[in-house]
Each structure stands twice: as C-alpha cells, then as structure tokens.
C-alpha cells in the first residue's frame, strides 16, 4: 500500500496541474482576505463571529484540494494512464484506497498552506487596523484545525466523485453546481436536510454558528461520513466497470 501511495503522490507532483491549483488557491485566498479584511468597516469586525468570517478565508483551499482529488482519478481516465495503472495494480479497490490516502495527504498540504495564509493574512489585517483579536484560543484552533480537516477531506471527496463520474469536465461541473447552487438552495429552503450537506458540515466543523448548522463535532462526523461513503461508492463503481 505504501508503494501505491508513493506512486500516487508522484503523480500529483509530476505535472503542472498541481502547481496551477496551488497558484489559484493562493491568489483567491489573498484576494478574499484583503477584500474582506480591508473593505469591511471596523465595527463589523469586532465580534468573534465577524472575525471568524475573515479568519476562515483559508478554507477556500477546499475547492482546490477537491479539484486536485478530482484530477487524481479523472486525469487517468482522460489521458488513458488508467490502463497502465490498472495493469500494474489490478486490485482496483486497493488502488482507489491508495488514491484516497494520497488525496488526503495532498489535501492536508493544501489545507496547511491555505489556513496559514488565510489566518495569517486575517490576523495581520486585524492587527494593522488596530482591531483587537476577539477569538479565544479554542475558537481560533477550531477555525484553523476544522478548516484544515475539511480541506483534506474535500480532496478525498473529489477523488471519490471522480471515480464515480470518471469524466473530468463532468465531475468538475457537477461539484461546482452542487457547491455553488444546489447546496445553497437546499440549505435555504430545507435547512433540516441541507445542514447535513458536506458544505454545511464543513461550516459547522470550522466553528461557524449560523442558524440551523450542526454542532462542530457533529459537523466533523458528517463530513467524514460523506468522504467515507463516497470513497466506498467510488471503489464499488470502479470495481465493476470495464476499462475501455
């Protein structure tokens, strides 16, 4: 298993795709951190709740780690490398587990970078503007740690959805449609169901306290359950289908 994980990590490192995703992530986090940190009027940055919105900007990394996860499997189908990959390891469930593990590791790297950047910029902005830091250490740890865990899990979710859908563009459009539209509608109109979505579970895990959100621990459990269930579905889907 270690060998497969090493091989998968090399796949992630050996193309420029990952570099592009990291660059996109950094640009977006810097943009939103500065936008929120500099344009929000000081009275709106006083409460822990307000500041959490700013300090949590790093969780945008989840979008990019999900994309990295998607690439991990769909680019193999797109470029045909799935054939040699399966020839070298025909135990497909084994291979997908290795991909999920490599995805999680890559996700942790994205999460560390994203959270460090987002929290760092947020903290610097508050300090520079002379606004006192309002979060307790525990709250800050939850924001950063929860964000980190969520970003890592998103990579596994991306890989799993990629394994189910297989088509790269289809997977990305599907995930974006879910995250930007469907999830928001669901949470707005049926919050009792919508709060169990991966996105809302993530919000809960990061310590956000909007109405209808689950408690942090439950949010974490729900997000882990999503990643696990989708990974199992991806393994089952991959085991059954022929590779053309």
């Amino acid at each position, binding site marked *: 298993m270690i060998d497969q994980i090493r091989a998968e990590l090399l796949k992630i490192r050996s193309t420029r795709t990952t570099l592009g995703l990291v660059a996109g992530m950094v640009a977006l986090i810097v943009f939103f951190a500065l936008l929120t940190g500099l344009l929000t009027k000081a009275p709106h940055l006083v409460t822990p709740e307000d500041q959490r919105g700013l300090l949590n900007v790093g969780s945008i990394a989840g979008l990019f780690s999900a994309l990295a996860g998607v690439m991990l499997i769909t680019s193999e189908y797109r470029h045909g490398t799935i054939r*040699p990959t399966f020839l070298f390891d025909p135990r497909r469930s084994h291979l997908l587990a290795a991909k999920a593990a490599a995805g999680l590791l890559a996700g942790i790297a994205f999460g560390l970078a994203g959270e460090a950047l987002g929290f760092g910029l947020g903290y610097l902005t508050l300090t520079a503007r002379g606004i006192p830091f309002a979060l307790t250490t525990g709250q800050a740890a939850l924001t950063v740690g929860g964000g980190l865990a969520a970003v890592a899990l998103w990579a596994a979710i991306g890989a799993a959805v990629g394994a189910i859908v297989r088509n790269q563009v289809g997977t990305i459009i599907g995930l974006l449609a879910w995250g930007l539209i469907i999830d928001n509608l669901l949470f707005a109109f049926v919050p009792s169901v919508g709060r169990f979505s991966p996105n809302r579970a993530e919000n809960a895990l990061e310590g956000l306290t909007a109405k209808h959100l689950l408690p942090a621990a439950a949010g974490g459990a729900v997000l882990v359950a999503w990643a696990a269930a989708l990974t199992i579905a991806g393994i089952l889907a991959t085991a059954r289908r022929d590779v053309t």
Partner: protein
Amino acid sequence: MPETTRAPQAAAVVAESLSKRFGRLLAVDDLSFALAPGTITGFLGPNGAGKTTTLRMLLGLAAPSEGRALVFGSPYAELERPALRIGAVLEATDFHPGRSGRDHLRTLSRSVGLSDTRADQALRRVELEQAAKRRVKGYSLGMRQRLGLAAALLGDPELLILDEPANGLDPEGVRWLRDFLRDFAAQGRTVLVSSHVLAEVAQTVDQVLIINRGRLVTESPLAQLTARVSGSVRIRTPEPDRLQKALEQEQIEISATNEHALLAHGTSSERVGQIAFAAGVPLYELVAESSSLEDVFLQLTAKEQP
C-alpha cells in the same frame, strides 16, 4: 480445423470459450486458444474483429461475459504483482502529456515497489534516455510507442502483450520493433502481438492466431500459412474449364478469378505449364504469384462474412 496447442497447464496465455457482449454486439464469440511459453504469436484480424477486446479481457481490464481468460494459469487480476511477469501496451497514447517520460515510468515502477533505476534501464532499453526528462507532449508517435514499451518492460516480464504496436510507426520504427521483439523472444520469453496487417508481423512471429467477427478463424504455425500461399499460380487461358478439369485431376486446388483466369494453389508455374501442355490447353499468361500472406489473410478473414 485449426490445430490447437494443447498445453493448458504450461500455457502462458489461455482463452477458454471466451465471449464478450456489448449490448447486442457479440464482440468476442466463444474464443479458445492456448499459447505455449517461448513463442511469438501474431494475433491477427481486421479492425473490429475483437482483438483489443480479447486482450483487455486477458489483462483484467474488461470482464468476460462468458468463459475465462487466463495468464500463467490465473485471471490477470488475481496474480500477485502481475507487472513483474507480464508487460502490456494497449494504446500508444496512454500518457499524461504534461508528465515527463521518466516520471511516467517512475509512477508505475514505484507502484510495484521497483526502484527508479528500473525506469532508467527501461528508457535505455528503448533508446529514449535523451528524451527522459522532456514532457511527453513533445514526443513523436514513435517515441510514445517506445515509452509505452518501456513501461511494459519495467518489471522485466516473461510475457509481452502488445496491441497494434506498429500502428503509426515509420519503416525504421517498424524495423526497430521487429528487432526488439526478436531479441526479446530469443531469451525464451513469450510475445502476443496483435495487428490488422499481417505483413507487419510476418517476419517476426512463429505462429498466427487469426480472428474475424470475434471468432477464431485459424490458429497455425506461420510456416503452414506460408505454405498455403507460396505456390499460387495465376493463369490466363481461353479454355479455363478444360484446364480446371485437368488441374483438378492432379489434385491442384483452383479458384476462378474471372472468365478467362484461374488461380492454382499449392503448385508451381512449371507444373501448371506441363499439365496445360499435356491437356493441349493454350496459355496466354502464366504467372507465379509473388503476393502473399496478405492475400491468404484477406481470404481467411473474408470467408467469414455472412
């Protein structure tokens, strides 16, 4: 009927009543064969005959609808680290364009616990070390074919399965491939190489497996196939019926190509000339056919048309 190598215990590759159905299409239809270790087999058939589908089943990428596909006695997916015994190339284009050739090989060698030096050795073996660090995007088709081969060689396999490896190669590349396969087989290893052009593999293979419309047409040593062709004689005569009768009395197989022309099989122009002389049939033209295996191949694969 084709003569089958019956050595299921020792066979490197076995298809047992192998079938594959895609919806209403029966792509592979009750195919059975066995390949002895140490042989080079040409797996031939026109495009769409079911060659690639058969290879996919042998390599565990597709599940048979019926029957079994065995490599070294087991289904591919049940072998422990199969890449160390079997090397295969199905498509010449199975690379990420943005990854270097060397990195492509390293992702594969790592996955089975081989060191990176194996990747470098494989690159040397296919003469790609100059391009090792370049991204595959900039490789020519011939270089991609060789990179695919390098991937198949990583595990130092005893069996090589190649699907249309000569596709898109220039004549130099075809010769390189031929030399390579001969060299590989000279070490007592087994090769199964598919092609839709017999001439590509005729100089390399010991035996041929010809399929058409998913069914086995012929499994025979190449020499046997060659014998069927070598003695074709094309004859033009104003009295084809009388000549045909005379030739048939001598047990010579005849096919009429048109009103005034005959094709005699398994004989020589000298013999046909003497028979015609003895029968008093005038000949306008008497040509020993230098053409070829390709004709036999086309005949064999055309015969099966409904």
